[in-house]
């Protein structure tokens, strides 16, 4: 097991390097640079030159890539600007071009915990609704229960969050007034630690922000976006569970289990469901990675200050370091999620060996 994890991590290194390289090259290949224009006014060449010099964009490309990877101290000897980066290998993702004075690390430290909270709650809701409904639909195959569960699932998949979000806001927040319209209200659980950073006007580290204080206010603000995101996820999970379970339940060994006189519950839960979860787990991995690193639409509609907006807006802003940082983060999340999926395989199906 340990050997497996170590090997997977080693394998992840060339993958992430390739991701870094291609993103680095692609984002610079898009027409238009970060500093050509302020709004729609083109800036004088000298002003652009000053900006590019400040952010090292006037260096040769290989040197920029080198600096990004292993830091200015190695690749830009004699840099005395006082803002030398340590390089991505040491966890320094560089400065944002758009948000002057903020680093990509600052942005991620602020935004990722929020996306993570939203994503975790939505995933729990999605799994909590999706799997039981899928099982129910499969067991009551071709009955009204199956049909209505399928209908709901299809609706859940096809009604986009762009529609669902505003409808939820209109009905539950404006008409009924049960929930706040938008925004996120997470206070760090360890607010004492956070306050020390605030008092010193410093960036609060990510780990302090990640666990929210479970206040009523927090859950009231979270309810609508979690519901919108969670139901969309649950629909996919339910369809997957239903299809897979239907297949497994017709297998010979299930008939054997039944013929041995096992209770139906034991047959379904222990024998059938477990095996049928393999395809479900397969989609859960990337879903998890995607949801935890930010969902643009939900975060936009509910004004949640998560990471999703940075994924999208950084490209429009040509904010190269933010594009690279968020892409890398997503890459890391995918690698970890897939590793967890593989470990879960081995546990769900003893025939799978982690080698």
């Amino acid at each position: 097991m340990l050997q497996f994890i170590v090997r997977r991590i080693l394998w992840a290194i060339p993958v992430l390097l390739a991701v870094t390289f291609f993103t680095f090259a692609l984002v610079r290949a898009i027409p238009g640079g970060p500093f050509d224009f302020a709004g729609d006014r083109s800036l004088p060449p000298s002003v652009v030159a000053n900006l590019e010099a400040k952010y090292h964009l006037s260096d040769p490309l290989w040197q920029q890539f080198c600096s990004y990877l292993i830091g200015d101290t190695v690749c830009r000897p004699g840099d005395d600007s006082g803002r030398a980066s340590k390089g991505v290998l040491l966890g320094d993702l560089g400065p944002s071009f758009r948000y002057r004075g903020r680093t990509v690390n600052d942005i991620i430290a602020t935004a990722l915990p929020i996306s993570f909270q939203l994503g975790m709650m939505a995933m729990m809701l999605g799994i909590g609704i999706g799997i039981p409904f899928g099982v129910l639909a499969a067991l009551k195959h071709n009955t009204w229960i199956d049909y209505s569960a399928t209908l709901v699932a299809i609706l859940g998949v096809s009604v986009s969050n762009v529609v669902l979000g505003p409808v939820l806001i209109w009905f539950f927040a404006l008409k009924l007034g049960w929930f706040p319209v938008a925004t996120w209200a997470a206070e760090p659980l360890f607010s004492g630690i956070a306050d020390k950073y605030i008092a010193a006007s410093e960036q609060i580290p990510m780990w302090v922000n990640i666990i929210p204080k479970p206040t009523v206010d927090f859950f009231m603000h979270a309810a609508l976006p979690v519901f919108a995101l969670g139901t969309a996820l649950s629909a996919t999970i339910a369809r997957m569970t239903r299809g897979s379970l239907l297949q497994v339940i017709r297998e010979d060994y299930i008939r054997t289990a039944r013929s041995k006189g096992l209770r139906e519950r034991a047959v379904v839960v222990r024998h059938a469901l477990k095996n049928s979860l393999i395809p479900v787990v397969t989609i859960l991995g990337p879903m998890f990675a995607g949801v935890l690193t930010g969902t643009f639409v939900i975060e936009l509609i509910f004004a949640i200050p998560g990471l999703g907006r940075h994924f999208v807006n950084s490209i429009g802003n040509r904010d190269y370091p933010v594009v690279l940082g968020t892409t890398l983060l997503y890459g890391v999340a995918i690698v970890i999620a897939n590793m967890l999926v593989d470990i879960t395989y081995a546990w769900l199906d003893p025939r799978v060996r982690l080698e």
Partner: protein
Amino acid sequence: MFRNKWTILIVILLFAAIGLSACAQPTPEVVEKVVEVTVVTEKEVEKVVEQTVVVEVEKEVEKVVEVTPTPEPATMVTLNLNLGTEPPTLDPSLATDTTSIEVIGNQMVGLTVIDPDTNEVVPGLAESWDISEDGMEYTFHLRQDNNWVKYNPGTGEVEVQRPVTAQDVVYGVKRTLDPRTASDYAYVLYIIKGGEELNNADIGAMSDEEAQALLDAVGVEALDEYTVKFTLADPAPYFPSIASMWVAMPMPQEVIEAKGERWQEPGFIWTNGAMVLTKWAHDDSLQQIKNPYWWGADDVQIDVIDYVMVTEASTAYAMYLAGDLDAVGAPQDEIDSIKADPVLSQELMIAPSPCTYYYGFVNTKAPLDNADVRRALSAAIDRKGLIDNVTKGNQLPANTFAPAMIFGSAAGDPDIAPWALPEDMGGTGYDKAVELAKGWLQDAGYADGSELGTITLMHNTSEGHARIAQAIAAMWKDVLNIDVAVENQEWKVYLNSIKKDVPLEEVPHVFRLGWCADYADQNNWLNEVFNPEMGADRLRLQDAQEYIDLMDKARASTDPEERKALYKEGEKWLSDTHAAYAPIYYYTTVSMTKPWVIYRTAGTVGPPLDYTWKLDWDAKKAALGLQ
């Protein structure tokens, strides 16, 4: 065996669920309680705090008070507004966008201020200023009662640092111009002697003495503690307007040097304006409180401004309806239903805004290399119809570039492009304009618009721009029988596609852009945007010497009436005789304002100065059920 694993899974899931939601002792309850007490009565605060804190470590004291920056809503007059987006910076030298400038305008005050009602230059940090005979030297006399203040997040107090002096202005201006600061808007200060040289210098390759010599050569000096003199490179009668801008604000050298790029964070930043920055939760919210030590504090009713950063217009509008915001921009899709609603229509406010929407023509690209063709295209745009049916925000049809609130504007003057104006504004009306357009097309040698071939019209990707482009393309087709291909591109790609150096065969015939005022003078419009020697020259103007001369003359003249006359000539040259571009409409800000807002600013040339708003606080409390 696997039963165990199954249980483990459930336990893990439960654990995760608990960890994220239900678990967790809330932080020491002592703290929270104390907070409440501190808020309720100000005088007892100290006692209570000390009593509780005796048990705690000393640091806890700070923490306790520190949680109170948000004053209790019902006793503090609070304004709730939406910034729409995260301000990219609060550093006056680096700001370029309206969001940053809105926040900076509340907390900093420059030498002069643009009055939000009249859009005229009024005294700010400078009580008065003298102009030398030749118009090359401006001497500003500073107030002596303006102090740098800072918010202390440890105590929740605003603290006075020291007086703002002429030296701070000198430092601010030089800092903006210093190439190491890399300010986007540094070019605005090129009008100051030595400014352009400093900003263009490769300062990294220079010795310290050479760099210092360049810095010293900039035409700004402190004559004494409270007098600062600017020497200009060229006469610029609009310089008092420039002096209001963020790039020329005083800046606190000691903080900037001590804290580096993080000096703009609450707790570090020193400011000299009406409000003080207390909280900046990036991408989420921002809070400013009243600066009690400011000279005009008596006239500031607002104690707290709470900003949110909601990008999605429909969400912000829902928050407004729910009472979370005192004002909001009205989403375009909602305007019809708002106008039809008896209550909401009362809250709708439409105010002119210092921006112009226009279509640029590439003057060298056939068949648009003929002024008659361009004028025909411009006249065939039904501006009023477009406003009534597509944009719907009561915008004003434009016949010139600069809108009315800009010094030297000739907006609505029927001497210029009367065919762009409806009859009730003194123009010819659209029917007549169509006749004129057909005539000009024939003058240019085209009996029918189809002979022009396909005209490409490009805009940056956006639903609003697409609607306008489709409408105008349909007008050109209906009226002149011109085939139009509408294309769109992502914003930065688009800006590169319409640059002056793009080959003629690749550049579109027509492109859309807008322009908003940096300062209230025609120089910022006709000269900086369209003078081929100044701006980007996307129009690729032909035979422009006459225009360039007009601009140079208007810039140098010290006689306001003469300047106005020259700019009017410039407008006529550009919009009518050469029809180098098509002005379409002057923007309006379309916003909703709650009935308890007694006074607000809107569509200002300078920062909107939100702290000048006035609320009927009792009405707001009653409406929202605040105690």
